[in-house]
């Protein structure tokens, strides 16, 4: 009964004011930390440093946006890091061996699309849990990357790709182009999710797939689409990353980057049970993580200590949310992990 009541527009706004949801809590924590750092940390609040923060989170943020699209549709895509690394490295390898720039790009993007489709088809049509599908396809793609299509696991940025270096490796009015790329992706995803029919379908499907099917939405094709979008964003992020560091280390697949991606998405308030959240949530989550890391850098914390403190702060953020919005045993969704 509560849920039907809260869907009425008036009560919804009223509830919003009173209720501190996770996004608001994370945003408040971000503001508090930001203000605290601005006051107590010399060198934090200046343009150079703020740009630094943005640059450091742009790739993570982009991956987060792709992940958010999938998570809103009640899925998860753990293959994003593999899709970020291998197709990008393929493009770079092909370009360095003299293949035409356009063809090299098409090859990389096609590989990414193939895996996006595979993820989508397996989860939507074969009904394999997304967690396992994407775990396996990610592993498979990383395997493909190691079985001969790349000369080495670490591929340097070839000069032949310099015509597209502007997507992440240059600066525009003092702003690194990777930040601009992040902004462009954020706007695109936001428009897609909130202003297009398909975007709204994703929300509906994430909220209740059975209801969405009953109302006649093409549930399975839309699910395929969301993995496709995630794959495309991942390969774009890969190109941005490679152009900004001048190298693509495909061994990044072995690292815990994917956990950080899931983290910024869920931390910002995109619920894993689907249908909730949006671009703003990802940005909030990413900003919080980026700011904490930057502040600790200035505080001269070591890399490991930064991870530790970051983790503890995130844990506190989740715990506060949980205390303020406790789980109701009566209405908790079965199988919602």
């Amino acid at each position: 009964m509560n849920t039907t009541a809260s869907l009425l527009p008036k009560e919804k706004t009223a509830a919003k004011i009173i209720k501190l949801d996770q996004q608001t809590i994370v945003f408040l924590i971000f503001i508090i930390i930001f203000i605290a750092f601005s006051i107590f940390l010399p060198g934090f609040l200046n343009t150079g440093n703020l740009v630094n923060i943005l640059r450091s989170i742009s790739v993570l943020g982009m991956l987060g946006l792709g992940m958010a699209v999938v998570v809103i549709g009640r899925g998860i895509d753990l293959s994003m890091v593999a899709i970020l690394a291998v197709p990008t490295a393929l493009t770079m390898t092909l370009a360095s061996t003299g293949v035409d720039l356009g063809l090299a790009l098409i090859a990389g993007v096609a590989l990414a699309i193939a895996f996006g489709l595979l993820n989508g088809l397996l989860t939507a049509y074969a009904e394999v849990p997304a967690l396992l599908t994407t775990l396996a396809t990610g592993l498979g793609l990383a395997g493909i990357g190691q079985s001969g299509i790349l000369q080495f696991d670490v591929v340097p940025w070839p000069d032949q790709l310099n015509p597209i270096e502007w997507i992440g490796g240059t600066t525009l009015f003092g702003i690194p182009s990777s930040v601009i790329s992040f902004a462009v992706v954020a706007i695109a995803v936001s428009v897609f999710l909130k202003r297009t029919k398909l975007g709204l379908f994703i929300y509906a499907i994430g909220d209740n797939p059975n209801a969405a099917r009953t109302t006649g939405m093409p549930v399975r094709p839309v699910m395929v689409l969301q993995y496709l979008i995630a794959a495309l964003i991942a390969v774009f992020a890969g190109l941005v990353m490679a152009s900004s560091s001048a190298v693509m280390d495909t061994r990044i697949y072995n690292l815990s980057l994917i956990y950080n991606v899931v983290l910024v998405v869920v931390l910002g308030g995109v619920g894993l049970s689907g249908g909730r959240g949006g671009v703003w949530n990802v940005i909030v989550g990413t900003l919080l993580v980026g700011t904490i890391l930057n502040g600790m850098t200035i505080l001269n914390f070591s890399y490991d200590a930064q991870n530790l403190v970051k983790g503890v702060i995130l844990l506190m953020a989740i715990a506060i949310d949980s205390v303020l919005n406790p789980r109701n045993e009566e209405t908790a969704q079965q199988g919602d992990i």
Partner: protein
Amino acid sequence: MLTTLKKYRYQYWPDTAVGELLKKPWMDTAVPVVALMLTVAFFSWQLSGFFSISTVSDNLQQASELGFIVLGMTLVLIVGGIDLSVGSTYAICNVLVLYLIHVEQMPVLPAVGITLLCGALLGAINGILIGYLGLRAFLTTLVTLIVFRSLFDMLQFQWAVGIATHTTDSEAWYYLGTGYFLSIPMAAWAFAAIAIATHIYLTRMRGGWHVMAVGGSRRSAYNAGLPVKRVVASSYVVSGVLASMSGIFYGARIDSSSADTGSGMAIIVLAAALVGGIRLGGGKGSVTKAVLGTVIVFLITSSLSSMATTAGVSRIVLAVIFLLFTTLDIRWFKNRGKAVQELYVTPGYLDLPKAPSTAAESPYAVNDKLHDIELIGLGRVESPEDVILDDDDNLYCGTRHGNIMRFLAPDYQQMEVYAHVGGQPLGMAFDPDGYLYVCIGGMGLYRVTPERKVEKVTDETNRSLFSIADDSRLRLADDLDIAPDGRIFFSEATVRYEMHEWQIDSLESRGNGRIICYDPHTNQTRTVVKNLVFPNGICLGSEGQSILFAESWACRISRYWFDGPQKGRVEPVISSLPGYPDNINRASDGNYWIALMGMRGPAFDLSMRKPAFRRRMSKRLAQDEWLSPNINVGCVVKCNDQGEILEALWDRSGVNHPMITSMREHRGYLYLGGISNNRIGRYKLEKADPNFMQHPRRRGKPHA
């Protein structure tokens, strides 16, 4: 000729096997078992020495190390959570135990103790956050994964060189890692012990059932008053302890710490659990599945590297196999229920003799004798399948609410709950000491003492030697009578269906039922006659050495000699009735009353000879559109020991007693019960012995 072939084909071909096999609980684990067999077959073909003792024991050791963590993950998954932090916990405990042993030179026992404690502590952090504070498991363990990992990185950075430069000469430590007992490594022994203990805990103990309940339906568990929070929290603690155990064994085997210990482990562990068939979302999983998943994943990963496949190809193969096996398992899980539904019903061939006529000149001639009779408890009882009276003329009947009701003599106006037995009471009989024996559908044979205490007499019999389904439990004990020596003979109508599914059994009309004997002297229950077609009423023969029993769908009455010169023989009494017989009871003149709960029809009789037709029907139509025996009109008939029909009583109006499942003669009256009725009838018998009662009470010394 063809008919004979058809008859034998339906009698001996094991049609029921497929459905019963599919219904077995362990079929749930079929896909991982087949996957394991394929894996072993393939790699033992590819790799020489796959089964050599050293390889097997080496595999056992390493698989056990993985198994500990998979087991922990399994518990967490069953409870409905997920623990991504296992790899980090494992790593911390690994470096901790090495530090304690090498640098602190601690003896093995306290070092292991402290490490296990550390694992429990790390698990408790997850447990408190997720169980008590209600955080989301995925997100929380994701963050603790990062936190524990960075803790490990810092500890490893501090301690690694110390661990590398100090050595230990502890024999126990060495034995833990590389020791064997009966050429099986210690880790495997420890794992086996823990796996078996966990299995017993999950399937046989209260705590384990709580775990399954919380995972199966958290909300119901909460409403049922289970300590949901504590169960959830403790699953993470156990997961932490098991991860630390694995870290200890790995540490003891390799005796060195490395920086990448446990990284990416959650994924392998999760993959093992999922390949084993454990499902995300809780409630589904078992130790067997965890072990199967572990062995499959371990064998694949280690065998691929033994075959010197390149890392890339190994990853691709692994990914394909994961997807293949889990997709198969998910399909299996989804479709097994459907397959059981389609394949379980397997109609048999039943060639019924022609039905006797009920025309005016026949002994079954329809009349209206039961129309104007006294009604007892109208609207106050539901489903009185059987009725019985005691020495003091009080009337007893069962109701579908699980009660035995008593109407007090002489006017039967006052009704009380005589005993609450908890299931639908069917046939009833008094023993000479006044104990009321009751067959309870779905429960077995029970009795109510004169003090109104309900006691279980028996609920199982000996299991048939070659049955696929376990037929030792009583599913539908139907009617009983008591032999002079105290042995109780009772019928079990079907071993393949529950009471409310009697209609499906009628569609099968194969020998699914049996007669069982309970011997109070030895307290043993034994099946005496098998393969009966819905055996229903049971009545002691007038000579005291045989029982008469009715087979409802076969429309016949037979006699089974349990004593005397013909002991063990079954012979026909009435080979063809015009309807479906239910209970049989004694009449005061030495004859028998038989209740017919419904009358045969030619269409249904014909379909009994067309099993393939009925099978098609059961597959293609919804159950409520299946053919069903008519149970709208029935009657009571009286027959003698030779099976000649002497009398028939009908209610032509179809108002009071259209359907009769039992009748009991008592002191000049016939009392009528019906499982779909809301009343008991009382019919005044002409020329009946006014003092007759079927189960007179013994005078003299009471029952032992």
